[in-house]
């Protein structure tokens, strides 16, 4: 009996539709978020993440409606975020039906935001998202969708973010994101060893072996992926079956 490693499909949206692309370039439509949510709920996802990668203030009401439509399809936990900078924006996302919210750029500018959100909604609802890229012999945190370097050490920032109130870390490897070459296990392991809260690894997911590696070598508590699930390159059921056979604790599907 032990806590299962979570498999988490991620829906990157422009607020309204699921999109695919890198840094807002060549965005392609990848479907309706509620349709995908319904599919993943049935197929055995352990949780769902829905992000507003455009995060424009004008589109916020549209994104909140998307959260409502996604939440209506789910009997599993939902995490949502994108551009959250205030407690009120966090509340709006949770009220729309999310169980947890992610914070990224605004938390680097103002770490107290993590403390305020945790005081209001509990640490278990506050996920610190970090976009990290290898720079020399360390990893640096980037903000604004990975477009702006901060000079901040990603591992140190994760530790500090937990001290400020984050209840979970979502670590995305910018080096691995979109490459389908496996998760960044050294980065994930460094974060995992630095913090006491659960760690979700993101970026680089491919064949089932890549998940096995990030759970074993990367010491991740959960692994997130988008296109391999959206494009049906990898089925959730067969992935979990493989991991279970390899001795990784997972929640079986079906």
């Amino acid at each position, binding site marked *: *009996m*032990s*806590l*299962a490693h*979570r498999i988490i499909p991620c829906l990157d949206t422009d607020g309204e539709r699921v999109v695919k692309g890198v840094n807002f370039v060549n965005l392609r439509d990848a479907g309706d978020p509620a349709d995908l949510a319904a599919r993943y*709920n*049935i197929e055995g996802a*352990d*949780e769902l993440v829905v992000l507003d990668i455009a995060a424009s203030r004008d589109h916020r009401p549209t994104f909140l409606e998307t959260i409502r439509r996604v*939440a*209506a399809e789910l*009997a*599993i*936990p939902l995490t949502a975020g994108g551009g959250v900078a205030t407690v009120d924006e966090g509340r709006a996302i*949770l009220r729309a*039906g999310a*169980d*947890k919210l992610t914070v990224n750029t605004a938390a680097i500018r103002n770490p107290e935001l993590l403390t305020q959100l945790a*005081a209001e*909604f*509990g*640490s*278990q*609802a506050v996920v610190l998202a970090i976009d990290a890229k290898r720079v020399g012999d360390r990893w640096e945190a980037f903000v604004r969708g990975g477009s702006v370097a901060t000079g901040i050490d990603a591992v140190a920032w994760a530790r500090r973010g937990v001290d400020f109130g984050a*209840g*979970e870390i979502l670590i995305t490897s910018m080096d691995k994101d979109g490459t389908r070459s496996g998760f960044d296990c050294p980065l994930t392991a460094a974060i995992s060893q630095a913090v*006491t*809260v*659960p760690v979700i690894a993101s970026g680089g997911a491919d064949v089932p072996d890549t998940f096995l590696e990030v759970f074993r070598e990367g010491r991740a*508590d*959960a692994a997130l992926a988008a296109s391999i699930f959206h494009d049906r390159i990898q089925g959730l059921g067969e992935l979990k079956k493989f991991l279970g056979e390899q001795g990784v604790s997972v*929640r079986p599907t079906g």
Partner: protein
Amino acid sequence: MNIALVEYGAGNLPSVERALSRLGVESHRASIPGALGNCAAIILPGVGHFGALMRSLGERSLVNPLRDAVSRGVPLLGICLGLQAMFATSDEAPGDAGLSLFPQNVSALPPTDRLPHMGWNQLRRVRHSTLLEGVPQESYFYFAHSYAALDAGEAGVAFCDHSATFVAVLEQGNVFATQFHPEKSGPVGAKVLSNFVRYASGLRMDVDGLGNKR
């Protein structure tokens, strides 16, 4: 069948409402004492902070009506923080009294494993459980918490292990509670909710994979 969902400003009422409506069960939100007077059952959902929950119940004058309803035999289901609120005290808010349906304290989980205890875990049953009837032994349920009741006397019917052994399902007479979130636990969570509704109504229900009534 009319179920009152206690509304106190926090909590994730909509997901519990949706889970009930998939079972074909009507519910209404109860934020004033009168709303608890004439219902068939009560659900106390919860996320957030023990002290904030108890203060909020106090401000809405809901503490005594809740306790009175339990005394009258109205079935009550607490979820997550709703389970913790049934106890006398909590490490999370040492100055605040709980509903005191159980005399024990709610403890901070020791930091020997990752906290919060977040994700899907299994249960160990030690007594017969009405809520877990028809639920396969090896089922996983969704947890998200850092505090837990380590002891509930005879009322503890199923336990979970993470950092410590703690009460995952509590049942005593008409009082039921789960530390996990049945409304977030897929088909087996829907089964737990339907077992509570069935206890409260005598209605037997079967649910499909999404928790819809067949």
